[in-house]
């Protein structure tokens, strides 16, 4: 620290930052980005291992391997569904059949009713009904203090997603098999939910008695103790090629790595190669192709984490500190080998036997990690340094600007004092030491910092309005006969436009009044960069993927922007900033999603489709915010949007 306290070295350091900050920023950004991406390469990450010794995965003999049990259940379930389809139009969960099946096994069986509606009168504020069916296998030797959950969503026939009937059948079969044994130390809850995430949210809310205005959860008639872990089954077929393991939860939360490893290990024990993001591990991880595959897997995982929407029902368990993953079936035509119910039940049973062994809640291993392959992981200790390097340019630039503002001020001050000195030579001669504190005063940031204050308040105010406005937009849009998603999208555009116009109007008014003041652009940029740095650091500790993508996209743009007299440069800057605006990012995200996931290539089809999915994404983020307490909408509107506005208003300040 002597480096900073010694005025000479301090001056040197300042000079270095001043002179080389652009090069430093560039180098840091490139190095950080490459380093981060290189983490997916096998030599740079670590092999997964079991941290919790109590899990003892795969040490017990499977008792549940019977194809016929699950097969019979599946046939009966399909018959039941066919019957109900004939009698009723709207297909809902066959709750009475499921209840009868679970009760017949001697489980404590209950049905939960719930009602949900969408916020701000989306879909006319209609209240939808749903039911969850669950049976509790009471562990004989304990007093119901702990429980583990096996859950499967019910999907009606017309659902765009894969059916889960086979998963429900497998679950019933496992319930029957588990019931025959007395070695269970934790209660096992078999839960079948309706309406995807909403059903599970209703059940979890009721279980923990946390009220939500939009998901009205009926009281549960029976409960077990504190939930320790959960496994979600999404199995579509009787014979599958492999399991795909989904783990990204709400707000980018991840389950404990030990649970993920357990699931992987037990799949491998059955000779089944598990996948992540439906990407198989490349046979030679050290080759370039291997790196490419690992990078793709890691980036897909980060993409799922970044938007904060859970990839399955398991994602909602994380908010209650319950570790959960989803086993999703993958069936490939002409696969070399298929796995039947027998192997699937062995996998699930093995996981449950391991969970049953746990003496404590999951607390070892990692909660913050990235997975480039099923057996490799990048821990928080590994990914934080490259991320820091990636975000370092923000700090460099902020410091450089700060120093140059102070230098300008002091040079101005010294100029002033020089002029003063010329006018009043007698005073200047009288006591030369008095000049120094005077110059110091001018350097004091307090004087000029106040000039940035109004802009910051304005931006935050717009952020607040962006957070509150959607509800009014949707209300207003209904008056014009627009759908809520259109209304919301138009609203978002108009919020952007108004917010974007504000600095321009202010500047024009200021020039009309002849006030050439306004914030110093260097100071404003410095403050904005610092604000952005704080935002990045804060998000990175919660959701690394989100802050990584934000840093990758924003850092080059915001480092470049500065007010200028050149119209061309200005136009380019406007475009760049518009592209990285929250709405722009959502649109770009939609385009990427359409290209990568949906494989749309025709630009004429792509762009309108992307706009449609942007609208849907906006609406979904608002709904998720209200129904599931997803932070993304609040975070973007209250934090990221104001930060972006600060950079936008930078373009309207007076260039030097």
């Amino acid at each position, binding site marked *: *620290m002597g480096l*900073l*306290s010694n*005025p000479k070295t301090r001056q040197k350091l300042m000079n270095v930052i001043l002179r080389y900050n652009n090069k430093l920023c560039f180098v840091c950004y490139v190095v950080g980005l490459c380093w981060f991406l290189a983490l997916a390469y096998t030599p740079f990450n670590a092999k997964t291992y079991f*941290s919790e010794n109590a899990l003892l995965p795969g040490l017990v003999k499977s008792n549940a391997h019977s194809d016929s049990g699950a097969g019979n259940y599946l046939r009966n379930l399909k018959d039941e569904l066919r019957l109900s389809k004939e009698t009723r139009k709207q297909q809902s969960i066959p709750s009475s059949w499921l209840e009868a099946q679970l*009760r*017949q*096994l*001697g489980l*404590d069986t209950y049905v939960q009713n*719930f*009602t949900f509606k969408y916020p701000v009168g989306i879909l006319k504020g209609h209240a939808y009904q749903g039911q969850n069916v669950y049976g509790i296998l*009471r562990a*004989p*030797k*304990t*007093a*119901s*203090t*702990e429980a583990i959950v096996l859950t499967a969503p019910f999907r009606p026939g017309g659902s765009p997603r894969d059916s889960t009937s086979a998963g429900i059948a497998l679950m019933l079969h496992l319930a029957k098999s588990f*019931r*025959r*044994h*007395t070695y269970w130390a934790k209660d096992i809850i078999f839960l079948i939910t309706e309406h995807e995430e909403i059903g599970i949210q209703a059940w979890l*809310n*009721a*279980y*923990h*008695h*946390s*009220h*939500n*205005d939009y998901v*009205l*959860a*009926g*009281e549960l*008639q*029976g*409960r077990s*103790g*504190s939930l320790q872990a959960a496994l979600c089954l999404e199995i579509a077929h009787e014979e599958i090629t492999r399991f795909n393991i989904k783990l990204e939860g709400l707000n980018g939360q991840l389950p404990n790595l030990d649970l993920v490893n357990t699931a992987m290990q037990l799949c491998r024990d059955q000779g089944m190669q598990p996948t992540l993001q439906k990407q198989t591990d490349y046979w030679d991880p050290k080759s370039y192709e291997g790196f490419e595959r690992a990078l793709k897997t890691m980036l897909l995982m980060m993409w799922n984490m970044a938007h904060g929407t859970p990839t399955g029902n398991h994602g909602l368990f994380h*908010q*209650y*500190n319950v570790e959960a993953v989803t086993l999703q079936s993958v069936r490939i035509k002409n696969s070399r080998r298929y796995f039947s119910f027998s192997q699937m039940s062995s996998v699930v049973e093995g996981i449950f036997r391991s969970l049953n062994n746990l*003496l*404590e*809640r999951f*607390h*070892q291993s990692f909660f913050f990690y990235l997975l480039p392959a099923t057996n490799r992981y990048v821990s928080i200790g590994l990914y934080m340094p490259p991320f820091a390097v990636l975000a370092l340019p923000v700090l460099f630039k902020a410091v450089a600007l700060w120093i140059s503002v102070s230098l300008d001020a002091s040079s101005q001050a010294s100029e002033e004092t020089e002029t003063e000195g010329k006018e009043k030579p007698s005073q200047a001669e009288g006591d*030369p*030491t008095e000049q*120094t*504190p005077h110059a*110091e005063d001018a350097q004091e940031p307090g004087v000029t910092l106040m000039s940035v204050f109004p802009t910051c308040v304005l931006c935050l105010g717009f952020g607040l309005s962006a957070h509150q406005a959607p509800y009014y937009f949707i209300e207003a849009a209904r008056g014009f006969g627009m759908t809520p998603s259109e209304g919301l999208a138009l609203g978002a555009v108009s919020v952007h436009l108004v917010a974007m116009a504000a600095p321009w109007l202010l500047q024009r008014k200021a020039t009309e009044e002849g006030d050439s003041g306004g914030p110093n652009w260097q100071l404003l940029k410095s403050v904005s960069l610092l604000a952005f740095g704080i935002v990045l650091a804060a998000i990175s500790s919660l959701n690394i993927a989100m802050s990584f993508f934000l840093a990758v996209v924003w850092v080059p743009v915001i480092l470049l922007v500065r007010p200028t007299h050149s119209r061309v440069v200005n136009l380019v800057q406007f475009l760049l900033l518009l592209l990285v605006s929250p709405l722009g990012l959502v649109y770009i995200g939609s385009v990427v999603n359409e290209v990568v996931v949906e494989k749309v290539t025709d630009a004429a089809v792509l762009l309108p489709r992307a706009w449609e999915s942007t609208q849907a994404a906006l609406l979904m983020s608002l709904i998720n915010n209200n129904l599931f307490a997803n932070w993304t909408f609040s975070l973007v509107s209250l934090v990221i949007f104001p930060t972006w506005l600060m950079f936008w208003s930078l373009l309207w300040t007076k260039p030097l």
Partner: protein
Amino acid sequence: MAPSMGLRFLLSSIIFITLNVCSLGLFEDEFHEELFIKPLPTGHIYTHFQFTTTWEVELRRKDEFLHYHLFPKALGEVLAKFSVQELHLTLTQGLWRHEKWGYPLVDAPPGAELWVWFQPGTSNVNETWTDLINVLSGMFCASLNYMDAKNTVCPKLSFRPRGATSGWFSKTSTHLLRYAALPRENVCTENLTPWKKLLPCGSKAGVASLFNSIKLYDTNYHSLGIHFRPVCTNSDCTSTSVELSQTLSAVLEPTIFNHGRQDWSLKKLFGRMIGTVCPVAQTSTIFVDVTSNKMSNYQFTLNPAPNTVENFRRGRTEHSYAIYDIRQFTERSRVLDLSAKYNQAITYSQVAPPVLYVHRFQTGSGREKGGIVSLLHNTHPSQDLVVVYMEVIPWFLHTYLHTLQVDTFTAEMTHIGINGTTLKPLHLHYVPGKDRQRPYHLELVLRLPAKSVTRLSMQFERALLKWTEYPPDANHGFYVNSAVISAMLPDDTADYVALPQFSARISAILSGNESLSGRQFVNLHTETLLVMLPTPDFSMPYNVICLACTVVAIAFGSIHNLTTRRFTAVDPTAKGLLAKLKAKLPFLRRKKEGKEKGASEGEGEGEGVLGQEDTGQSEATS
């Protein structure tokens, strides 16, 4: 002379008779062994072993507790030494599910529970209690010694004496009562062994020979109990005797192994049969509740056929028990393997819940705040129920009384966010806890309306423990005691038979019809809770502590220095304080020299002072 002779004779005969009575009284004790078997509608079998020893001895006369016959000496000495009026100890594994199984003969919470009434005049109750739990702890191989002040309370209403007492107890003062529970206490054979040593025949003979640890501990519920109390010897209660009842309850599930059939036999349930009776037992009886045979067409037949089937009324329900006198069945070295065969496999159906049952759970998420909610169900169609609800919450859950909310729902509770009609407690007793000293203790008297669900909720804040206070498995969580609900059930309660007040024997249920028509007392224990506290990462304390301390140590000083210090540029041409002083030095020196010639020591001092000032100056400018 004659009158005096007559008087002397009378006196001596009185003395003789008294002595005689005393010496007879010394062995006026009885032992009864009983086994009660009740098939439950959920396919479980409830078995309850009841060993009752009554001893006609005056409780308060300690000198009579010197000669023992059937009463266990080990326990008798302890009870006498610590002036115990009543003692109730249960050690339980598993949870009794009232909703499905109805009420047991003796209710017990998971873990250990002990409540003791001391005799009036016991000088220092707290000290006596501490001594007693330590003795009992050693005696039953249980960690009862953890029942210290941190989790002992003195309940006001929930625990009244169960046995005969004089008038003193009718006053509300309960300073002679202590109650504590250990929800985490595990029960195993190490507790069973000392428990069965208290029996006159041990587990060598009689129904106790069925105790097979492997089978007994592979059950859905298992509870050991010791209940000691004074009881009346006659109907007028002019004298009292003491009664020790040792209970062992087990709920087994034969359907798991019998392909869905509820058929059971002693051999299947316990792996053993009864071949003998305890020779000192006055009665050895097996009771099988066959009431359910009359109710539905899901019936069982007993083999061998019972001696008698007794019918009796309790409230409006007619109950019938099949009675086996084991002595008859084991004559001529026969073996009794009582078995029951059902006419069909079990079909599980929704079981009608009892009149009063409670479901308790914890609420909230995260590791800072939380709550406890109890749902009290009164399913009686027309009668309100007055219940006493007692909650003992450990000190590390800071509970707030102002968050206590009691809502009652007579209609259906549509969703969890809805509020019912607020129910005002009839009486409330609350003792706030103190950190590391005493638990939070709440007792409420509530009137539950007919056909209603009452929701009782309370919020708590989790304390951060000192790091040495965490157990080795800190991430397992911390247990909270069961809540205790006491109530008098209405007289038309179906399917519940309580043990009568005057005797703990099961045969007393059948005999004393006159006192049984009325309301029955019931004591319920709810689920225990497992609560997570904010827990530091104990898995790598070394790394974390070392790294964090190093970083703080390195960074703090310099950053503090940098951020608080004011930097001023010094004009190199300006004369500093040092230079000024130096300039003055020759002048000073000359003055000194002028005043004190040859005083060289003074000079040295002067220079020293200057030197110090010098360093001070350099520090300030650097």
